[in-house]
């Protein structure tokens, strides 16, 4: 599998994504946001960070970067796209995913481990996660409070496009397990076709036992399996 990790001015988890992907044997490389060619990528990663300093609104400026046209074309053709943290915000701003990410309900930045339960099992990113398995993955954001209007939420739920929800260590979806106030504990969502995922938690940080766990790898491994190269 080839994975293009897009670098916007202000991205900072590009290196961490390369680290996680390379550990799994993926041919991963950076693509500067001014490029228009994704280099034949099977998977496109929009990493975390503060693209353009989060000025104006998170992701609002990065969506106009030249590379985003290529990302859109790649997605339209069924290619896999994952946006993590700021990448999720960019995908929402670009209209590739529904909803918005508001300031955390606490009005503070939060960097802490959270537990996630995959609420959908058919997508390329979640198919490899056994039903009921609880993943421990860190969050690190100030604006991860997901919101969408009632009709959008209804569509997300009925089409099983809520990829991940915040839960307790036992897999219970409770208000106490919600670190940022997201509606319905939503931590990640899919587009209608299931090939575009946005999520606030950082799977690339849960990539090795040395870092406190490697639960994040199952998401990359799912994508690898879909592209046809066993991990």
């Amino acid at each position, binding site marked *: 599998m080839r994975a293009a990790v897009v670098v916007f*001015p*202000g*991205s*900072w*988890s590009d*290196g*961490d994504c390369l*680290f*996680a992907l390379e550990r799994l044997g993926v041919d991963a490389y950076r693509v500067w946001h001014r490029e228009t060619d994704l280099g034949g990528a099977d998977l496109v990663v929009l990493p*975390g*960070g*503060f693209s*353009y*300093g*989060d*000025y104006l609104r998170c992701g609002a400026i990065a969506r106009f970067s030249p590379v985003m046209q290529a990302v859109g074309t790649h997605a339209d053709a069924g290619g896999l796209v994952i946006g993590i943290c700021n990448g999720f915000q960019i995908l929402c701003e670009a209209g590739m995913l529904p909803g918005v990410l508001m300031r955390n309900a*606490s009005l*503070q*930045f*939060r*960097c*802490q481990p959270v537990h996630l339960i995959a609420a959908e099992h058919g997508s390329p990113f979640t198919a490899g996660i056994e039903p009921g398995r609880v993943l421990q993955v*860190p969050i*690190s954001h*100030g604006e991860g409070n997901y919101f969408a209007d009632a009709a959008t939420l209804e569509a997300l739920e009925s089409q099983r496009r809520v990829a991940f929800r915040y839960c307790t260590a036992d897999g219970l979806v409770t208000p106490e397990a919600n670190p940022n106030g997201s509606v319905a504990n939503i931590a990640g969502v899919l587009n209608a076709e299931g090939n575009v995922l946005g999520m606030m938690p*950082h799977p*690339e*940080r849960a*990539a*090795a036992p*040395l*870092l*406190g766990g490697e639960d994040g790898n199952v998401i990359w491994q799912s994508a690898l399996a879909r592209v046809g190269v066993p991990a």
Partner: protein
Amino acid sequence: MTVDDATLERIALSRAEYERLVDLLDREPNGLELGMAAALWSEHCGYKHTRPLFRHFPTTGPSVLTEAGAENAGAIDLGDGWCAVFKMESHNHPSAIEPYEGAATGVGGILRDIFAMGMRPVALLDSLRFGPLDEPRNRHLFSGVVAGIGGYGNCVGVPTVGGEVQFDPAYGGNPLVNAMCLGVGRVEHLLSASARGPGNPLVLVGADTGRDGIHGATFASVELDDASEERRPAVQVGNPFMEKLLLEACVELAEQHGDWVEGLQDLGAAGLTSSSVEAAARAGTGIEIDVARVPRREAGMTPDEVMLSESQERMLVIPKREHLDDVLALFRRWELHADVIGEVTDDGYATIREGETLAARIPVNVLTDPPQYELDCERPADLDRRQAVDLAALPDCDDPAAALIALLGSPNIASRRWIYRQYDHEVLTGTVVPPGGDAALIWLKGTERALAVATDCNGRLVELEPRAGAACAVAEAARNVVAVGATPVAVTDCLNFGNPERPTIAYQIEQSILGLADACRAFGTPVVSGNASLYNETPAGAVLPTPTVGMLGLLDDVARRLTPAISEGDEVLLIGAPLAQPAQALAGSEYLASRHDLVAGVPAIDLDREGRVQRLVLDANARGLLSAAHDCADGGLAVALAECCLAGGVGLDASGAVLGDRLDAALFGEAQSRFVVATPDAETRAALETLAAEAGVDAVALGVATGAGEDARLRLGPLDASLAALREAYEGGLPRALGSGA
């Protein structure tokens, strides 16, 4: 030009210093020359009260790559071509006036010191001091500083992994904000901040220059008073996004095109003046700058304003002439402005022009040769009385569980989670021991090594006995590093004191520096970088003497890392001292201050014993005997054990421990040179006890860690408390003090 006293006061230059300048120049300086000299001769830039004392510090060692003070930060050879650079710096005065931006730009400044050397910043730490949180103003300063550190570091993408915070009335109105940064890279990519090669261009990169922060260096070198609010324009505003671009561009330049540049220098205090002059001084050259070529944020700025502006996120690059275009193109690709503003000369002068008009011409060596003062020291009159307080006459503790719960919930000891969960402490995927333990441990990717970093200083101990107290700061920072399994390697310091012109403050400064030097020499940890922040005073008085120590440690095998978390079945021991302690062990302790409202006694440390204890812990860990380790410091043994239990989520049965005549001294005394450690079983415990006996170090078996769950308890002699109650006190301490459920 005659200079009136009001002008001299505004730029914090004495009449005698002015006359010295006239003598050196053999003429009256013009306004810009005077401003440049005042900035470089300020305490903040010139260290005129502290530099003569720095000679006491050990500064060399087999792994030291830089001469102390020669570059922006100290560099350490880690072997196999790897290099670490680190430094700590204060941003106290700006944070007192505008906590968010003051702290944020403190982080920005220390980051630039690191990437100016071509290294990638991989960890930030912050050593903070405030007045008590029951005062609204202190809550405002504390939450503002934490938000500013997070706001900057989180955006730049460098993890904030550690530090400390203490609260004491002496810091009310004059908080301390000391930021430390660690960078790593390959030795061959180290850059110098030198303006070498006459004829090479000077390139200013990054933000445009505005009127912000003018005279910041002099502001940092006077006491705070009621008029300080009016200094708000001397506080700069940070742009972490610009910093991130500068960081990436500079690291790329160093790693891939180091041969294009002669020097790289950050713009910090005193802006373009200090960066260009210091770079010229390092190389023995001169510089010529045309201020008309400096891109401005606003129209109508005078040469003085351009040269003294402290606008943030700017770097001075000295490319080789033939690579000027390459360097400009590299910065443009990172979407940064880069402009030629002058060139290196061979005449030893700092020459400033505005177009064709000469604005200033002053020898570099005059600017970098500030007057130096011998301190006029006098031991504070009340020290003898405070040291002589008979601690044995105090009533002993009658309810140890309640006392422990009170300590765990106090702002000085309670969990720092409220702080560090606001900081991204994991970005760059190198943080293998996160905040909350003794030291943070950063994995050196591509190797099996890891770097430990910690900051420490207990101002109360320094106040009571400056020389021993400062040595304790080094010892505790070293113990913190040892507690994660790393060997202490080198030190950076940040010397925070009051007005050095007062003899009692001068005494604190001199004795503290001697104490730091004693300990650094004893542990073989040279001082490779540092910063002094004096005049930390308000009309209410000076801050506690706070020579903050930043310690770097190296762990060869990251798999051997330790944390305070004990597990069920672990055998827990106290290493370094007998269990029973005399009342004198309470000297300067948190227990004494909070329970008896008393800061008294004589802090003491035996550096030889401290070294033996640390070596024993490292040796035991290298032999695989240890499963956990924790420094036994603030709050004493009971707090250390509670933290081990809370970290591991288990109880401990040490009910058989014999605590001696003074319960309070054994449980809450803060005698130095002690660790709590755990071994996985009785066999390894026995091996550790043998090893300790051979090393002449006390090792006292306390008991066995018991099961997790609702009914887990900490039992230590007569002390018996539920883990749930300890956790509630510890985790809720800071939020309660801040008056929020957050």
